Structures are given as structure tokens and as C-alpha cells.
């Protein structure tokens, strides 16, 4: 498919363009809105996300290459965008009435959320590393500010501080990697690059790929670029934490998928850079580090932050399996897992957020959760279901997500030739052992809520609007595995590099 020029690309870019224009519009509306009319800004932001989401859902994504091959509207981008926009919409919905963000700053908060969302849209639809880098930066710079949004709390400033330092280093290293790849391939087009890199020097190529991975690895909080995530997650306002742990991670995986599947998946390349093994090792370390660190945590928010590192590790396993001859099965499994993760992880974070409000538990510490079942049976049970799903216990959605992901890695390992000659069954066994470890710390929370006796007996009531949001997240967590399966998440194949791209210049 030949790349479209700028004008004819626009009609395929309507969802993203709508989101970007709304973001700018909200900045302007916010300037003129005062007092009560600030509500308009929030409603407008949610409308913007709803419009962008609906357009993304209904517009056919047939793999057009837009803007002279800068972005691709394909099924992969569509699914990732729906996850991201869904996460952003639910997050905005709950932050409409959060007390964490000061009233007068709400407008900026919403606008920044939309800009971050648009940055993530750029990341997952990028087919050129320049656009990928711009997307990473747009999403990151907005998130830095969002992390520091609690104006009077030093822990929030500290979160933003650590985030901006780690983030800029990681994206700088990524850019250096891109510049090396540009030198070797003569292009920054992801698909074209894969074809041209085959003759590059293996060592130089390996260094460039490792540098490139620094940028996306930091987005998905993979070891050794994970150090920022527990601190940032703990210090940020809770809606931002939830947004970063799901949308930002999904966008990171979208970009990783594009780079490794579309760009570096060619067989000749795999012979010189053994990235499946590299990613498999990182995946093993990431899930183990995340789970072991989560074990000692007494703060539920921090516990969820570490567990989200572990989930990144599981997903990275799917990326490693992309090195096999059939990349569509691991891709579908990753998409399904992220869709499930959206509901269960957001749900768990939002329950924590709601309980942390002063009128309820007023704390994120585990002891405060004791005996919650007596004080609010509904919240305790809903939270338990989210946690069981995060562990991967059947019949909840998390179980199906893990099942399909593990199965795709085993299948990829067992075919002739395996994943670039490796057999990753050991990795799946390690992931299962890790799930058992995660049982321990998730269950500690469940035990505190359901079995322990608390000192206080006063009932805790959930706000009705919040209960509705929780229900939207709860039902898919319960039922998603029964109504869809991984085959619904199969998207188009990786583009054939040589056939699909016109000769540049």
C-alpha cells in the first residue's frame, strides 16, 4: 500500500485529529471558564475522549500509511487506542470529583490528560521512529506535570522530580539509539529499516537496539528501567497513577510491538541480533523483581505499583515470542491481556483511591483495610475480585489473559525452530511460579479485608457515581473471558517491508 500524502491522509486521521483539537480547545475554554462553569471543562474533556473513542471504533482501520508513511492506521493501532482512550475516559470520570486535584487547576489537569492520551496515540500508530519519539516525549512531558499535580504535597513533587529525571535520560538514550539506526539503515521508517539493517555490523546493531529499548523499556517499566515506577506511582495523585500504570504501559507495549514485530522481526536480522533471548531474560528478571518487591509492601498503592511491574514482565514474554515464525498469536495474546488488565488494574486502583478519601478509610495502608467486609461488603468483594483477577485465578478475566499469553509463548516455542532457535517453556514455568508468589501478597490484602477483624465498625459507603464506574470495570473483569476470546483480538499481519513501501527519495 503506497503512503498517502498529507491531504488524503486527513480523512483517515479524524479520530486522532479530533482528540488533538479538543485538547487545544480545552486549554482555551479553561481560560474563560470561572467558578462553577469549570464543570464544563471536565464534561468537554470526557466528551472529547468519547468522540475520539467512538471514531476510532467505527472508522475502518485497514492499514493505510498516512502522511508519507509516518503513521499507520491498522488494527493494532485501533485496539491499542481503544484501550488507551478507555483508560483515559474512566480516569477522567473519577477525577471529576477527586479531592486530590485542586478545583482551580482542574482545567489544566484535563487538558494535560488529553495531550498525554494523544501522545500515546502517536506512539501506537507510529510507523516512523521520529513520530515514535515525538509520541513518547509528548506523553512523557504531560505525565511529568500530571505526576506533580498535588500542589501542596512534597511527595507529589518528588514523584514528578524522579519521573522527569529518569524519563528524560531514558528518552535521550532512546534517541541516540535511533540516530545510530538511522546511520545504519539510512531511514527512520520502521518497516523499511528492518529490511535495510540486515547488512549492518551485528555489534553496532545490538548496541543501537539496546539503546532504543531503553526508551520503551522505561515506558513499560521493565528492569533495569523500572526504578522510577514505585516512587512515581506512590507520589502521584491516584487517578494519574492509575492512568500511568495502564495507558502509559499499553502505549509502551504498542510501540515495542511495532518496533520488534514490524521493524526487527526479519529473519536475517534475528540472526545478527538475538533480541528474543534478550527480551526473554529481561522479562524473567522483571516479573521476578516486581513480585518479590511487592511481597514486603504494607502500602496497598505501592503494592499495586510493584505488581504492575510484574505484569509488565508477563507481557514482555509475549514480545519475546514475537521472534517466532508466527507473530500474530503472541500479538493477539498481548492485546487480550492488556484489555483485561485495563479493567482489573484500574478497578483495583480506583477502589484504593476511593477508600483513601478522608471520609472513608483515609489511608492506603494495609492495616486500615482490616475488617472491611463488615463496613462495606460490596467494596470488599469487588476489590477481592479485582485482586483475584490480577493473580490469575479462574474464572476471572485475568486467568484467561494469562492462559492465552502463556499458551502463545509455549506454542511459539514448540514449533519447528522455536523462537529464533530458543525454547521459552522455562520462561512460562517461571511466570507460573511468579503467579504463585503474587498469590501471597494479593491474598494478604484479601485476607485483611475479608477475614481479619478491624477495630472500627462504622459502615463505609461508596459514592453512587463511583459505584457506577466500578460496575463498568467489574463486569468485564468477571465476564470478559466468557464472551470473547483471544481470536477476537487477532489483528492484521506485520507489513511486508519490501512490497508495501515505495522507494524513498
Amino acid at each position: 500500500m503506497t503512503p498517502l500524502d498529507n491531504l488524503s491522509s486527513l480523512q483517515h486521521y479524524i479520530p486522532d485529529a479530533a482528540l488533538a483539537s479538543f485538547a487545544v480547545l480545552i486549554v482555551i475554554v479553561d481560560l474563560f471558564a470561572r467558578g462553577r462553569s469549570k464543570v464544563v471543562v471536565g464534561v468537554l474533556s470526557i466528551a472529547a475522549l468519547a468522540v475520539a473513542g467512538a471514531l476510532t471504533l467505527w472508522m475502518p482501520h485497514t492499514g493505510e500509511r498516512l502522511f508519507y508513511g509516518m503513521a499507520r492506521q491498522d488494527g493494532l493501532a485501533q485496539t491499542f487506542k481503544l484501550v488507551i482512550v478507555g483508560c483515559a475516559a474512566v480516569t477522567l470520570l473519577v477525577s471529576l470529583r477527586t479531592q486530590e486535584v485542586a478545583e482551580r487547576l482542574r482545567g489544566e489537569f484535563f487538558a494535560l490528560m488529553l495531550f498525554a492520551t494523544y501522545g500515546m496515540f502517536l506512539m501506537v500508530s507510529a510507523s516512523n521512529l521520529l513520530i515514535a519519539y515525538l509520541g513518547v516525549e509528548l506523553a512523557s512531558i504531560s505525565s511529568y506535570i500530571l505526576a506533580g499535580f498535588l500542589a501542596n504535597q512534597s511527595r507529589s513533587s518528588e514523584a514528578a522530580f524522579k519521573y522527569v529525571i529518569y524519563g528524560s535520560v531514558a528518552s535521550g538514550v532512546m534517541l541516540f539509539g535511533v540516530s545510530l539506526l538511522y546511520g545504519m539503515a539510512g531511514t527512520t521508517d520502521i518497516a523499511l529499516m528492518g529490511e535495510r539493517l540486515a547488512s549492518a555490523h551485528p555489534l553496532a546493531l545490538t548496541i543501537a537496539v539496546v539503546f532504543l529499548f531503553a526508551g520503551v523499556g522505561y515506558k513499560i517499566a521493565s528492569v533495569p528501567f523500572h526504578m522510577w515506577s514505585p516512587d512515581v506511582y506512590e507520589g502521584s495523585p491516584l487517578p494519574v497513577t492509575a492512568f500511568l500504570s495502564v495507558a502509559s504501559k499499553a502505549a509502551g507495549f504498542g510501540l515495542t510491538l511495532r518496533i520488534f514485530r514490524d521493524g526487527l522481526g526479519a529473519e536475517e536480522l534475528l540472526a545478527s541480533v538475538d533480541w528474543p533471548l534478550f527480551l526473554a531474560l529481561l522479562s524473567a528478571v522483571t516479573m521476578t523483581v516486581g513480585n518479590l518487591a511487592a511481597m514486603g509492601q504494607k502500602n496497598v498503592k505501592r503494592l499495586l505499583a510493584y505488581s504492575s511491574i510484574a505484569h509488565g514482565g508477563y507481557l514482555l514474554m509475549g514480545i519475546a515470542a514475537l521472534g517466532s515464525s508466527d507473530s500474530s498469536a503472541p500479538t493477539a495474546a498481548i492485546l487480550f491481556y492488556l484489555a483485561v488488565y485495563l479493567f482489573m488494574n484500574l478497578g483495583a486502583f480506583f477502589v484504593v483511591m476511593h477508600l483513601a478519601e478522608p471520609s472513608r478509610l483515609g489511608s492506603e495502608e494495609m492495616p486500615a483495610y482490616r475488617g472491611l467486609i463488615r463496613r462495606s461488603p460490596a467494596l470488599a468483594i469487588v476489590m477481592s475480585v479485582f485482586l483475584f483477577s490480577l493473580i490469575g485465578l479462574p474464572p476471572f478475566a485475568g486467568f484467561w489473559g494469562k492462559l492465552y499469553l502463556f499458551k502463545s509463548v509455549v506454542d511459539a516455542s514448540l514449533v519447528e525452530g522455536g523462537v529464533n532457535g530458543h525454547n521459552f517453556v522455562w520462561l512460562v514455568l517461571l511466570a507460573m511460579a511468579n503467579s504463585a508468589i503474587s498469590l501471597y501478597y494479593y491474598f494478604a490484602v484479601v485476607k485483611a479485608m475479608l477475614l481479619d477483624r478491624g477495630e472500627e465498625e462504622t459502615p463505609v459507603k461508596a459514592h453512587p457515581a463511583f459505584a457506577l464506574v466500578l460496575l463498568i470495570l467489574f463486569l468485564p473483569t468477571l465476564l470478559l473471558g466468557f464472551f470473547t476470546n483471544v481470536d477476537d483480538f487477532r489483528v492484521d499481519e506485520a507489513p511486508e517491508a519490501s512490497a508495501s513501501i515505495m522507494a524513498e527519495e
Partner: protein
Amino acid sequence: MITLTHYVVVSALLFVFGMFAVLTRRNAIAILMGIELILNAANLNFAAFSKYVVGGVQGQMIAVFVIVLAAAEAAVALAIILDIYQKVGTISPDETRELKG
């Protein structure tokens, strides 16, 4: 005669200096300067590869994008550093210890 090798060596040196500053400095401003060095190392690479290997102006164009982004990033980073200095009184990532990283 200046060849591509000269440019690549200088850019690699810039990158190493930048990385060194990031890893050893205890002051956020110095770390930011290190990040600038890393970004400019990449810019130099883009411009040099564009002239000597690829042809056209694609590489220079990317460098212009990066310069704009670096400015935006520095603005946000400095604002955040100012904010934490007012609240905590230090700008060393090692001494901000409220969150036990």
C-alpha cells in the same frame, strides 16, 4: 579532511560525557546538562549521517525536531526542579527520600 568517522567519534564522546554526568552528578541541574549532551550527541549523529551516508535533509530535519523537544523538556524539568527546591530544599535525587526508592 573531516570524515564521517570524526563526527561519529565526537558524538560518541558527547554521549559518554553526558551519560557520565547523569550517573555521577548529585545535582539535578547538572543531570539536565548531561541529558542535553546526550540529545546533542544524537543530533550530531543525525546531521552527520544525513550528510555523509543518506543524503537529503531528513536527518537535519529530525535534529530540528529534537532541538524543539529538548527545549520543551528542559522547561518542564526546570519548573519541576524549582518546585521541589521550594518544598524540600534540595535538588539532589539522592537526598529526596520521602518516597523510599
